[in-house]
């Protein structure tokens, strides 16, 4: 390592750095370090002339290491790596010293100390660069197919977008039909379109699209591999109905003697033990609910089998496993509804006239259990007064801190529907803040105000039921009037929040994804990479990433599809050169690295009679956890070796 020729470039970043740090002094001091051929300061290193200077020096002065002391490497490391590469230097021989975020910006009031620190930081980068080795990016081919998990509106949108671009799409849906929550809604805000009317044509498109293979009533069990080359194992649950024979005529359900509460109608209506969740289901194939079917329970009945004209009933059907090879994955698993039962003070689940927003949707829907009549569950009478209680389970430190983003508009729309159906009814919305931020939302809010809906600013403290008439007494503080009051209503609708799906953890561990503090899947960057995840090739569509209304879910799902299309259409992906490598002679096979790897990139293998660990290079993200965990130091983290880091520490501590 005797012939390192290091060039050091200290950026002024306008006045961002030079306003605090004495950049000339830094350059002078660094120029005196061993192996440093030149140290220059310049106004904007990232500018075209700045880069040209580096390239020129690499050629003229035969530099074989370049240090750029400027901003965080996050933005400009690729810039300088590329410049070095253009001048014929391996990009991994470029080091950055962050003297802006980690120095000038945080020590603005102490210019002298900031200069000392900048010298130390640059000296550390110089010391480390001696240990840097040239590394290569790796290229892998991509399977031009995608897996979309979740068949709600987001998954539908992502699937159609990718399929229309010519990529094969496997859409996996857990329940018997696609459609998701959107299929349960009556009308959508603020345009009052019928939800099913705009959704079902898209569902039909899914079933007809030549590039889409729909795996409904199926679950993703395992995913292996990496961007471009994922292998997914999907379990097709038995419907006990041969999908290829079932015509969806419904005769079986007509003849089935078993009535059970319908999940689709949230238990407000019933379905049979052989059923489709709703009439427009896709695929329109019946499913036997094993738990409630008399044949499975008592070995009797078989009515469906007797009446099925196409012989589709197959009680002996077994779960089947399908293996899919895809290049990209979109997570569109959506959300669950907050269980209002957790807020005991509202009596949900105890008082029959306290319902949640989604139940209201089923009641007001023409194809719902009451054929669209909003009636009090306790006595079937039309309500004369309705209260909407906002932020149930949202913006609440005892439940979830975040805003669920859909409930304000949903309640406004539902209030409007009450006013439409019962013009004389008194409708009150109890709110903390009305959040009507989308296109046309504020106007809709205005409209509902005009319709005579009352808005009371304050969280409802308690709901009590009058045991005689089952009317509800809401106790609340009107914070605008500054008084505590009680008022009686016939019906209370809780605007329950949106929470991560109950099975989020399962999918998280299958894919090793990250989740935010709210429990939803975490995007790679909150602003600049909102649909990517920390796993290359895995994208987020819709409410799996956080609460979203339909327009946002569709937009996010479309964005996920277009991001997923990038590697799929490239046909190949480049992978980072900074990865871990194992010295098999030193490895003792203790398996610690295997346990700590977040990406499943370490597997044990047999090597001359002993078990040693090996890095699956395409899976390795270069995080370095295995390297620091390895007790024998047989795992070397390229670009961040122990020797290099110790040299950095020593350089920082030298003065």
């Amino acid at each position, binding site marked *: 390592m005797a012939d390192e020729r290091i060039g050091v470039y200290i950026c002024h970043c306008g006045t961002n750095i030079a306003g605090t740090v004495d950049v000339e002094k830094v350059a002078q001091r660094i120029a005196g370090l061993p192996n440093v051929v030149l140290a220059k300061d310049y106004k904007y290193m990232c500018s075209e002339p700045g880069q040209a200077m580096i390239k020129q020096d690499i050629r003229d002065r035969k530099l074989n290491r370049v240090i750029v002391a400027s901003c965080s490497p996050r933005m400009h490391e690729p810039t300088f790596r590329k410049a070095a590469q253009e001048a014929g230097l391996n990009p991994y021989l470029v080091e950055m010293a962050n003297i802006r975020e980690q120095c000038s910006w945080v020590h603005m009031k102490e210019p002298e100390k900031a200069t000392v620190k900048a010298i130390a930081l640059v000296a550390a980068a110089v010391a480390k660069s001696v240990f840097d080795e040239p590394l290569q990016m790796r290229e892998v081919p991509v399977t031009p197919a995608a897996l979309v998990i979740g068949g709600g509106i987001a998954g539908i949108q992502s699937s159609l977008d990718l399929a229309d671009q010519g990529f094969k799409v496997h859409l996996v849906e857990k329940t018997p039909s696609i459609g998701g929550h959107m299929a349960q809604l009556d009308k959508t805000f603020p345009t009052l379109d019928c939800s099913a009317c705009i959704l079902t044509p898209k569902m039909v498109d899914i079933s007809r699209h030549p590039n889409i293979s729909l795996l409904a009533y199926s679950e993703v069990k395992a995913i292996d591999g990496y961007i471009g080359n994922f292998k997914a194992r999907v379990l097709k649950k038995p419907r006990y109905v041969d999908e290829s024979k079932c015509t969806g005529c419904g005769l079986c359900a007509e003849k089935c003697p078993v009535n059970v509460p319908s999940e689709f109608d949230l238990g407000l209506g019933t379905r049979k033990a052989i059923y489709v969740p709703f009439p427009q289901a896709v695929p329109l194939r019946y499913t036997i609910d094993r738990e409630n079917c008399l044949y499975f329970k008592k070995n009797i009945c078989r009515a469906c089998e007797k009446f099925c004209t196409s012989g589709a009933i197959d009680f002996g059907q077994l779960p089947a496993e399908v293996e899919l090879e895809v290049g990209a994955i979109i997570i569109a698993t959506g959300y669950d509804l907050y269980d209002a039962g957790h807020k005991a003070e509202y009596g949900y689940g105890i008082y029959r006239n306290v319902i949640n927003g989604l139940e209201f949707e089923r009641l007001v829907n023409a194809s719902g259990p009451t054929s669209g009549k909003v009636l009090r569950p306790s006595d079937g009478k039309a309500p004369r007064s309705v209260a909407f209680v906002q932020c149930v389970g949202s913006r609440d430190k005892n439940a979830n801190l975040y805003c669920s983003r859909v409930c304000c508009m949903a309640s406004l729309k539902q209030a409007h529907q009450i006013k439409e159906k019962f013009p004389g009814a008194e409708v009150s919305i109890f709110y903390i803040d009305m959040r009507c931020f989308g296109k046309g939302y504020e106007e809709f809010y205005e409209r509902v105000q005009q319709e005579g809906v009352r808005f009371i600013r304050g969280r409802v403290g308690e709901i009590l039921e009058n045991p005689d008439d089952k009317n509800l007494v809401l106790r609340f503080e009107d914070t605008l009037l500054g008084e505590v009051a009680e008022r009686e209503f016939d019906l209370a609708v809780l605007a329950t929040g949106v929470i991560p799906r109950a099975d989020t953890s399962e999918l998280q561990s299958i894919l090793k994804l990250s989740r935010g503090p709210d429990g939803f899947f975490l995007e790679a960057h909150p602003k600049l990479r909102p649909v990517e995840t920390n796993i290359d090739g895995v994208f987020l569509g819709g409410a799996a990433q956080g609460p979203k209304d339909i327009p946002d879910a569709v937009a996010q799902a479309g964005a996920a599809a277009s991001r997923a299309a990038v590697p799929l259409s490239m046909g190949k992906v480049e992978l980072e050169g900074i990865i871990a490598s194992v010295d098999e002679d030193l490895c003792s096979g*203790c398996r610690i690295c295997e*346990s700590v790897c977040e990406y499943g990139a370490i597997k044990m293998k047999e090597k001359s009679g002993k078990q040693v660990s090996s890095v699956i290079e395409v899976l390795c993200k270069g995080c370095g956890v295995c390297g620091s965990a*390895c007790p024998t130091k047989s795992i070397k983290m390229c670009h961040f070796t122990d020797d290099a880091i110790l040299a950095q520490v020593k350089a920082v501590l030298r003065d």
Partner: protein
Amino acid sequence: MSKLKIGFYWASTCGGCEVAVLDVNEKILDTLKVADIVFWPVVMDIKYKDIKAMGDKSVDICFFNGSIRNGENELLAKLLRKKSRILISFGSCACGGGVPGLANLHNRRTVFEKVYRESVSTKNLPGVIPRTCSEAKEGELTLPEFYDTVKTLDQVVNVDFYLPGCPPPVDLIAKVLQSFSSGTNPKKGSVLAPEISLCESCKREKGNKKIAKVKRFHETALDPKKCFLDQGIICMGPATRSGCGEPCLDANMPCTGCMGPIPGASDQGAAMIGALSSILGIENEKEKSENDMDQLVGEIKDPVGTFYKYTLPSSIINRRVK
């Protein structure tokens, strides 16, 4: 060919290393056929002046055990270095500082306070503390200076070879004597023990390492076939050099690390801390609070004594600073 001249010295240590030399049993006789023991204070009467009288490099091999705790240890180390052709850092104390090296968590003043004044078994009413020089009826009496910091042998003199272990394994001692008498000298500066970790030679069944809780011996029934770490018991094996013959493991006790670090991982304690902290509580890590983590780590009793039992003076952070 003239006989090899060998010597043994015992600095700051318990003396077990020299007992280990005797444990080679009758093989010592083979050695004596080719070597003369010219210097061994524990079995031979010899004075400083006798060593000083020896010619430079006149001792072929000197086995030096014990760490450098005081002025006398250092003086002898330097003297024996001068007189010896080959100086072997013998045993854990000479190589890494050993158990006496844990005194680096204290300094001279606090060690003396504890030993000569505070310890319940000490009766020292005038509160006398050793001094390098004191007046007595008979005249001036001197004692070697007691250092603040325990050092390893190679921190005061150049060392040719290392033979770690507490005590060094009999097999390895016999092998060393054999190889030097047959004239096949290993590479200078090398450790005269296998270049692999104990895990590699350990026969126990190894599973996926995810430790939910660190346990102490009395808290669990140890399965003699399973890896200790998999059972939640801290075993220094992953970060420790093999070659001991595994007597502890055979007795169903985990490795405490006496063979010192493995090549490439010079800070044995740090290597093990890195490994253990990576796998401790890793299951559902994200759901654990800082409190949970503190509690998990708190279950490791005497962390320095666990991870640096034999190597505190030779580690990167080799003593308490404040």
